[in-house]
Structure formats: C-alpha cells, structure tokens
C-alpha cells in the first residue's frame, strides 16, 4: 500500500467552474457586441478592442512582474476589462488615449488596491469616467453609421436636441445611431445577457432591477411608453446593466443586496438623465452603486435557516452553552 496518501479536510471534490472559465463566458457574451460594433462602425472597432486588451494584459503582467507577484494573466480578467473598456469608447478614439484608459483601469483602479477581488470600483468603468472627464471632446466625437435615419444622423438618441418621441424604436434597438462601440446595439446586449444567464455567470437580479427601475422611473417622469423604451435601449444603460454593474467584485453578494443596488442605479441614472447636466448618467450611477456596495454587504443579509428575531437570540445566546453539534449531512 502506498504510504504517501494525501490527507486533506473535506470536501474532496470540486466543481469544474473556474475563475478563468467564468471570465471566458463573459468574453463570449461580449462577442455579439463586438460583432455589432464591427458591422455598425467598421473594422477600426476591432483594432480598438485589440489595442485595449493588449494594453490591459501588458499592464497587469508588467505590474506583477515588477512587484514579484504571481502573474494572474491566465484568469482572463484583464482581457474582460480590456474588451469592456473598448466598448466604452467611440470608434474614432486615438489609440494612445485608449492605452491611458487601460492604465487607469488596470494599474490605478485594480492593482493599486490589491488586484482581482480587492478593487472597490469596476476598473473599466473608472477608465471610462477618467477618459470622459479628461478627454471629453474625443469621447463624445461619435461616429454615425451611414445607415442611420435622419433624426439620428447627427446626434445620439439621448442628446437634448433630439425629439425622442419621434425616434424609430427599431433603429435604437438595432443600434443604428451614434455612440460608444458596445452600447448602441440593444439586441447584442440582450444576446450577451442571455449568454451570461445561460452559463450561470450572473443571476438576473442586477440587470432586471436596473432595467426595470430605469424603465418605470422614466415612464413616471415622461409619461410616454415610447420615450421610456427609447431611453432604455440607448446610452450605456443596457450595456452597463448587463456587463458593468454585474462585475462580481463591485456588486453586492446577496440577492436582496443586488435588488437594492440595481434599483439604486436605475434611479440615479434616470435622475442624472432628466434632472442633471448630462445626457448620460449610467457610468456615474454604477460608480455610486459600487461605492454603496460595501454598505450593502455589511448590512443586507440573508435570513439563515432557523434564525429568530435578534432580541430573543441575544438573550438566548447569553445563556448559551455550545454543545456538540448533532446535525450532519450525508
């Protein structure tokens, strides 16, 4: 008999799901958006994606090499950040600015906080916001697809000059209008959502609560179903709700927390869009959501099986005398 047996604590088997596997599914879910962007805006979209992905992976690799940390590139999380960041840029973005965005995302937002699992905000989101504030003219230099209808040939559906009740819902749904790479095509975002849900990467709480609350609040403010649907499909709302707000690290852990987080983001987005100084509010709403996440994790809990009201439990705990647990699973 072999005397070098392995002795470990139970359980002795593991699920096949890995971090890299989950990130791989996210990349697969981003594929429809990348295809839609290439169709709508041309081949430069792919170039932009390639450059940001390369920059993100390179920054992460170099940083960990410099700090003599284990190289985490194999978990694909930097690739996901790269693709999402590219999806948040207009197609004409100069490549050197894209590289700055990657630096902000990977080094400043992710690695300075301790790498994967420790960042308090979504790296790609902070990259987007920094570029948006630092390079505003370039970030809003949208390119308009040749096929766009007259109303949308020179403005995004959310621009103040556009009469949203006259915009064709189909054009908005298919993404035939100006905007960032990933966010114009609602169809592709929904396909991505379907892939993520099918693979069990995310559950429906966050996207559904964001989209549902944004839709309801817009409906209440504008009173028009058409406008509410147009707003739902345009700007970063759909892309953000599916790919950015659902980032594991920066969203709450419990179902209840996710629901509150989603409704909060939906509400803030609508408030910024209708009462703030910007046409677009999604990125800032998600950032605020990221910030309240640690509060939600601290105070919003599941109810354990057999849990009783705190006063009773507290009193009982005072006299409590731990006995050997009888329970056991087979």
């Amino acid at each position, binding site marked *: 008999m072999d005397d070098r047996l392995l002795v470990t604590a*139970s359980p*002795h088997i593991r699920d096949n*799901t890995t971090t890299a596997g989950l990130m791989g599914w996210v990349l697969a879910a981003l594929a429809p958006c990348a295809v839609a962007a290439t169709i709508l805006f041309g081949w430069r979209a792919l170039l932009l994606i390639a450059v940001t992905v390369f920059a993100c992976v390179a920054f992460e690799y170099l940083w960990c090499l410099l700090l003599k940390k284990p190289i985490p590139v194999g978990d694909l999380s930097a690739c996901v950040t790269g693709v999402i960041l590219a999806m948040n840029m207009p197609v004409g973005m100069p490549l050197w600015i894209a590289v700055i965005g990657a630096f902000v995302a990977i080094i400043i937002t992710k690695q300075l906080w301790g790498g994967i699992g420790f960042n308090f905000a979504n790296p790609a989101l902070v990259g987007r916001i920094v570029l948006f504030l630092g390079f505003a003219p370039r970030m809003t230099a949208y390119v308009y697809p040749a096929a766009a209808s007259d109303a949308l040939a020179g403005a995004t559906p959310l621009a103040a000059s556009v009469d949203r009740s006259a915009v064709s819902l189909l054009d908005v749904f298919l993404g035939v209008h100006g905007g960032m790479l990933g966010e114009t095509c609602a169809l592709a975002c929904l396909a991505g959502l379907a892939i993520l849900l099918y693979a069990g990467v995310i559950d429906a709480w966050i996207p559904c609560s964001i989209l549902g609350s944004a839709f309801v609040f817009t409906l209440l403010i504008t009173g028009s179903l058409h406008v509410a649907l147009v707003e739902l499909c345009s700007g970063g709302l759909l892309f953000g709700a599916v790919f950015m707000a659902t980032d594991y690290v920066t969203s709450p*852990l419990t179902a209840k927390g996710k629901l509150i987080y989603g409704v909060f983001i939906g509400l803030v987005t609508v408030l910024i869009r209708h009462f703030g100084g910007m046409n677009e509010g999604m990125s800032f709403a998600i950032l605020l959501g990221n910030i309240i996440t640690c509060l939600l994790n601290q105070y919003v809990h599941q109810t354990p099986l*057999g849990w009783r009201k705190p006063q009773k439990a507290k009193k*009982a705990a005072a006299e*409590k005398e731990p006995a050997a647990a009888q329970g*056991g*699973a087979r």
Partner: protein
Amino acid sequence: MFKTLKRSAAGAAVPHEKGTAGMQTVQMPVPKEVLIPLQMHIGAPAEPCVQKGDSVKVGTLIGKAGGFVSANIHASVSGTVKAIEDVRMVHGVMAKAVRIEADGAQTPDPACVPPTVTDKAGLLAAIQACGLVGVGGAGFPTHVKLSAKVDTLLINGAECEPYLTTDAREMLECSDTIIAGIEAVMKYCEIPTCIIGIERNKPECIDLMCSLTRDMPGVTVKPLPMRYPQGAEKTLIESCTGREVPQFNDAGKPGLPADAGCIVMNVTSVSTLGKYLKTGMPLVAKRLTVEGDAIAKPQNIEVPIGTMYADVIAACGGIREGVSLGKIIFGGPMMGGAAPSADFPVLKQNNGLLLFSREKAVLPEPSPCIRCGRCIKGCPMGLEPVNIVECFNNKDFDGLKARCVDLCVACGSCTYVCPAKRLVSQNMALAKAWYLAEARKGGK
C-alpha cells in the same frame, strides 16, 4: 422569487456517481482479525467488559455504555480477545479498542434473542442494548434522540453524498425491516406521522417505498430535489415539513430537530432497529460502498464492524492495476474524512470507502476570491461564507455572531462551488470552532 430574496439556499449540484446503485450487496469473507474501538458515537466512551483471552461470539457485549449519551459495543466476529489497547482513531483522537482474533465460524451469541417491547421505555431500553447510533454518519446514540416528544418521524433516505449507495441498497434489499422499524417507532413513541424523504435520483427506491407504505396510515414518501445536501438534518426537515429548526431553543441551547417537532432517522438506522426487534442481533455489521477510480471492483459490501480498511480493499480486488492510490476517504467525498493509511477499522457510522487515484486526489490551488457570491447562493443554511471567513480573519467575534456562524453544518457546499477553489468550508469550520471557544469563555 421571494424565497430567494430571503435565503437562496440552493445547495450544490454535485455529481451523482451512483454506479454501484444497481449492485447487490456482497458479504465479505470473515477477516482474520478485527479492531473494535469503544468510541464510535457522540458522547461518553463505552467501558470494556471483556478481558484478554476471553472467547466471544457474534453479538457478545464487549463494551458497556459509559452513560446515557453513550452506546453499547458488541463483538462482530466470533473468536478470542487478543488485546484491549489504546489506538489512534482515524480522526486523530486516542480511544480504547478491543482486538479480536476471528475463528471464522461466526457463531452467533445465544444471548441474542428478540427483545420484548411493550412501551416506549422498553423500546428505548432495547435500542440502548443493541448499541444503535445514527449510522448515517453522525453517530449520535439513537435512544437519546428518540426520548424526545415529537409529532413527526422523518426517515432520511436522501443519500445526497456522491458515490454512496448504501442507503439505496438498504431500501431495496431490506425494505421489510425498514417498515418494521418505522412501525415500532411510530407505535411505541406515539408519533402520528412519518415522512420518508428520498432524493429523486433513486426512482426505484421511491416507487418501492410508495407501494409498501400505501396502506400505512400517516406514512408518506417525499421525493426530494437532486441538490446536495438534501440529507442534512435541518435541510431535510425544511424540505419535508416546511418547519425550521430554531437556532436556539427555549432553553437557549442550540436547536435540535425535536424543537421543530421532528426526529430524523437514517433508513439504515431504522432498518437496523427493525432487524434487532426481529432477530435480537445488535449492530455488528455495516454495508459499505467501496468506490472510486482506484479500486479494482467497486461494489457494496457488508463487513463486520472493526474490519481494517486494508482487508476491505483486498476483498474488493485491491487497487486497480496501473493506478497510483492518492487518497482513502471514509464516508462520502463531501463530508467524509481522508485517512492517512489503510490501517484503521470500519466504524458503526461509516458507510463508504472511496479510493481516489493521485490525479483525482490532487486538488486545484486556491486563487484570490472574486466575490462572486456562489458560496452564499449555495449555503443550505442561508449563511454568508465569504463574509464569515472575512470576520474570522479579523477575529471579529460580534461579526461572527451576527452572521450565525454556529449554524454551519460543514456540508462543504461552499468549497465545492467556489470558482477560485478556495478552502471556504474548511475556514468556516475554523471560524465556528474559534467562535464556540470564545463563547464558552464568555464572549469578547
């Protein structure tokens, strides 16, 4: 949907691997020697009542219960007592054990006659005499469990651990003694209802139990979802009755199934009781599922208690040729322990022996937590493992208390589902032990 908001408690979708479910139980040839520890249950160890050189028969009392929460121990083979010695048990503690050299005749002890039971006290005395413990894994003395006053008897046939099929075989091969045991417990303990919970991956067991219990008033069969851990006591109670075992009972002690009006018995326990009432033979043999990718002939095999793992492995054809043995697990792969060698005896509460090859035994390295919340979704008790481990790392007593770490049942679901392969449930166990120790000191 609202249920999920309250508590996801989804459990884990573990593989079934029930390849031995269709195999008739094989009787193991009598081993040359058995080593019977006097501590195979929760509670006080039994006191040895034989001496070196004594001759014993199958069913002879060799260890007398050392208190109320304790159990009798009987010889599992006929032969001669070779020694009473201190041995290290497989989980590390020392215990007295009786080493018996078998004569191979397996002569039953003439003192083993069916008990006469007329009331509850008589039944409990009979159970105590036959040394019955919760053979599903916990090893809790059954007579202590049955002394509570309840209204529902739950029979646990979930067998949610992968690989194990001993309970399934018990239901298919010994259904008559299961029914006899259920009838006895319901009659003498005055329990009006009985629910037999069986996971849906055992349709033939569900069909058989349904047909046998059709004419029994108060007895129903409840098919359970195929999510690990359906067989965990508190999960089973909630699945079958909708009741929750409270965290603390009215006396402030940790809640027991009796606080929810339930007693849970494993099918094999209740069947052993039925057999004892019929034949008078106490718990001396146990069916084991011997499985894994390193065993030559996977099978269900009935072995005398105290048989060495090495003998069981040899009886199942030994290690598969060309495979390097990496791990021996007693019990299932989710909650069973890993043995440092094959030189340990089979206990009353063991129900499986798994042999994994080195490739299967080596587990992936942990990577950083990505806070995906899968451990929270999976926890059958509705706990938040990721937060509990964080509190434990900060030695935050109040945080652990608020997050009810004492409710952890160590089912291992959180570690199983973790995509970063972190040792979540292992750290939960440390957190719970630390919390209970601090609470005993009066809390901080």
